């Protein structure tokens, strides 16, 4: 079963064959997206303060009025994905029965994780449990019970629900594109809704919106992220915080990301993701060993147990009787954030999951990343809690003031702080690179009309564009405004995600049931047959022999 013999295989060789000057793009999607991005950047630079106000009001209105809807959506999606894991579609292979995975399982996990949420975990793994320990709506702050609750709330926000949303979008795109032959593009997810119209302007508009949203999503987190990296560096080295340093950081990250995207998925992105995960693993291992090892090991089991015991309660809690607004800034914000990012992450997951069965897919995209996330949050969050509860304390204060520094303050409590802090910075930067390069890859695939191995010139263009947009917005202002704008797309996309559940279920049922050849309306003229028995051998001799 050699891979190259299978017709359904995405041929890794074509990545190299395409050459530099081969620019095979979808003209409408590519140029209109580029134009719109330019337009939005200019508008944001001119009307920054105005725009920020508008988008923040929109976002808070969405949280006010549609919070319940987000909670419904993520729970429905989680149940749906779990039924796929257990159900009769588990053996369907993405890419057809002959397809085989393109990447090793470890490389696959590394890429999923690096694109999915790696970077946020570095900052919030320490910070979020601290926030909830100090204040949460469920139990009295600062108590043992609040420590337990703090970990549980963090698990809820980073656990099964976000990965279920990513799984759903990834699975829909992968199934309809690899098994049904539609283009690998966001418009494909709308096929059951719009039918053939996805090939026309309806589809173009969907792809253009996805491109613009993904680019701004990735660029604004890059822009805001380097401010945090700068804060961390300043804390460590005292180099100060300035736009110059941040622009240099953006430049550096963009260059590495561009290199990785141009090298392609296997040689660039996969390798970088693996390096990235290895360094992150080393850092986590170090904290585990020199930190309160026994406390962490105990906590891991208890946290997971607590999470599953209270999952139904916590994931459906809606502040109904409390009438507070705590959830808006936390749970609802997270849900709309994950959903807004799901086209990008889902698309990337779909691209790298060719050849997996649905059961492997759900195990690999829902359960494994969730477990790794829990491990990470437990190692860092519980260490912080340990210091806060039984040690020197002081972390919660730092967290309230300056989230990005929290990781470094935590590391200061342990020996070898220079090495670990350097490792910390390297991990943060490589995580930025990996989310930036996967973002560009996704945009490349969309703007090349669904080609899973997009042309090199277009990869170069989008990777550089991303850094450029981040840099320009950083200097001119407008990062927060555009990021808020990106998150507001979570609401319309939540509606779409629910539609995707129905569409995917229908598609899978049809695919798994016995199918027949049928041909439609045809001219029905009847002719008399006048065949005469041909008994002599009048066939042309075959040249086979």
């Amino acid at each position, binding site marked *: 079963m050699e891979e190259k013999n299978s017709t359904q295989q995405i041929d890794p060789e074509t990545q190299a064959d395409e050459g530099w000057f081969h620019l095979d793009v979808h003209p409408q999607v590519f140029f209109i997206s580029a134009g719109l991005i330019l337009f939005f950047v200019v508008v944001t630079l001119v009307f920054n303060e105005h725009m920020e106000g508008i988008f923040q009001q929109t976002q808070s209105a969405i949280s006010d009025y549609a919070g319940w809807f987000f909670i419904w959506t993520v729970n429905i999606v989680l149940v749906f994905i779990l039924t796929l894991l257990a159900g009769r579609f588990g053996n369907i292979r993405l890419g057809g029965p002959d397809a085989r995975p393109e990447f090793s399982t470890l490389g696959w996990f590394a890429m999923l994780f690096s694109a999915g949420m790696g970077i946020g975990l570095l900052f919030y793994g320490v910070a979020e449990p601290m926030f909830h320990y100090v204040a949460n709506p469920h139990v009295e702050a600062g108590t043992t019970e609040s420590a337990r609750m703090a970990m549980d709330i963090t698990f809820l926000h980073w656990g099964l629900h976000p990965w279920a949303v990513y799984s759903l979008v990834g699975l829909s795109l992968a199934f309809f594109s690899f098994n049904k032959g539609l283009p690998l593009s966001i418009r494909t997810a709308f096929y059951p809704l719009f039918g053939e119209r996805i090939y026309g302007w309806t589809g173009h508009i969907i792809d253009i919106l996805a491109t613009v949203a993904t680019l701004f999503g990735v660029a604004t987190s890059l822009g805001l992220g380097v401010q945090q990296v700068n804060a961390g560096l300043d804390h460590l080295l005292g180099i100060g915080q300035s736009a110059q340093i941040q622009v240099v950081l953006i430049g550096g990250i963009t260059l590495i990301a561009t290199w990785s995207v141009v090298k392609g998925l296997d040689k660039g992105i996969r390798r970088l993701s693996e390096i990235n995960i290895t360094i992150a693993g080393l850092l986590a291992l170090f904290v585990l060993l020199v930190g309160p090892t026994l406390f962490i090991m105990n906590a891991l089991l208890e946290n997971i147990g607590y999470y599953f015991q209270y999952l139904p309660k916590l994931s459906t809690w809606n502040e109904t009787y409390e009438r507070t607004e705590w959830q808006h800034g936390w749970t609802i914000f997270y849900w709309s954030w994950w959903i807004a990012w799901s086209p990008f992450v889902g698309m990337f997951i779909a691209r790298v999951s060719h050849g997996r069965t649905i059961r492997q897919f759900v195990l690999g995209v829902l359960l494994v990343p969730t477990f790794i996330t829990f491990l990470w949050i437990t190692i860092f969050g519980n260490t912080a809690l340990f210091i806060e509860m039984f040690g020197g304390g002081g972390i919660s204060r730092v967290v309230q003031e300056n989230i990005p520094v929290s990781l470094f303050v935590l590391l200061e409590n342990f020996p070898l702080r220079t090495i670990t802090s350097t490792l910390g910075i390297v991990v943060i930067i490589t995580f930025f690179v990996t989310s930036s390069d996967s973002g560009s890859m996704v945009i490349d695939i969309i703007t090349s009309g669904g080609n899973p191995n997009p042309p090199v010139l277009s990869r170069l263009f989008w990777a550089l564009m991303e850094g450029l947009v981040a840099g320009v917005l950083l200097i001119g202002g407008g990062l927060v405004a555009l990021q808020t704008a990106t998150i507001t797309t979570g609401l319309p996309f939540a509606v779409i995600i629910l539609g995707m559940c129905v569409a995917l279920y229908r598609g899978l049922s049809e695919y798994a049931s016995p199918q027949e*050849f049928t041909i439609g309306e045809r001219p029905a003229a*009847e002719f008399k047959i006048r065949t005469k*028995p041909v008994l002599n051998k009048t066939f042309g001799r075959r*040249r086979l022999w």
Partner: protein
Amino acid sequence: MLQDMYFQYRGACMMLFQQEGEEFSFRGTAFLVHPDGYFLTAGHLITDNHDLMVVPADETEGFTPIRTETVAPIPVEVRQLDRERDLALLRFKEEIDISMPDHVIGASENVPVGNSVACLGFPFGYYQIYNQLIKKAVICSKISSGNETRIFLFDSLVHDGNRGGPLINMHDGRIIGVVGGRFELQEILSRQLGKTSDLPIKTDVSYAVSIEHAMELMKKEGLNVI
């Protein structure tokens, strides 16, 4: 297993006719492989410049009449022809809506000798009996012919009308070859034996050309096969 396979492919497998003036004469079997209206059949069934057409099998369930007087043919045209490998790719002349199963094309390298296969066709079309038949067999051997065409031998005696029909892997229900005819030694050895020879060497073995050669034709036509 065989029932599922028959249910799946009975609509795909059609009779191939050619029009010679007023005559409609039966040529063999052809089968649908692509939703854009493409058929595969054996290359040697196509001779001269006759108008070709296909006729679907009688769609009535249960027992179908043994003889038919009239047909409602659908015109097709030849898109690709590979005489060396004895394959032809045909297409509906008009646009016709087609729905078909996914992944019907199998991977022939995965089929071991001894694997059960089935073939569908209209074996007795030359004798004015237009009923669709399914037969099952096992792969006897995988051979490479004089011009390096990959060929499956299977232990079933196919009749003239079967030619151009699909050879289906019973293990996964996908097409692995195009039935070429009986494995006749006269034909194979004709170069050595000369044309006059009519050796009484009978075999009960037939052959089919492996599907990957047909995939090459489909690629030439720019078809995306999933």
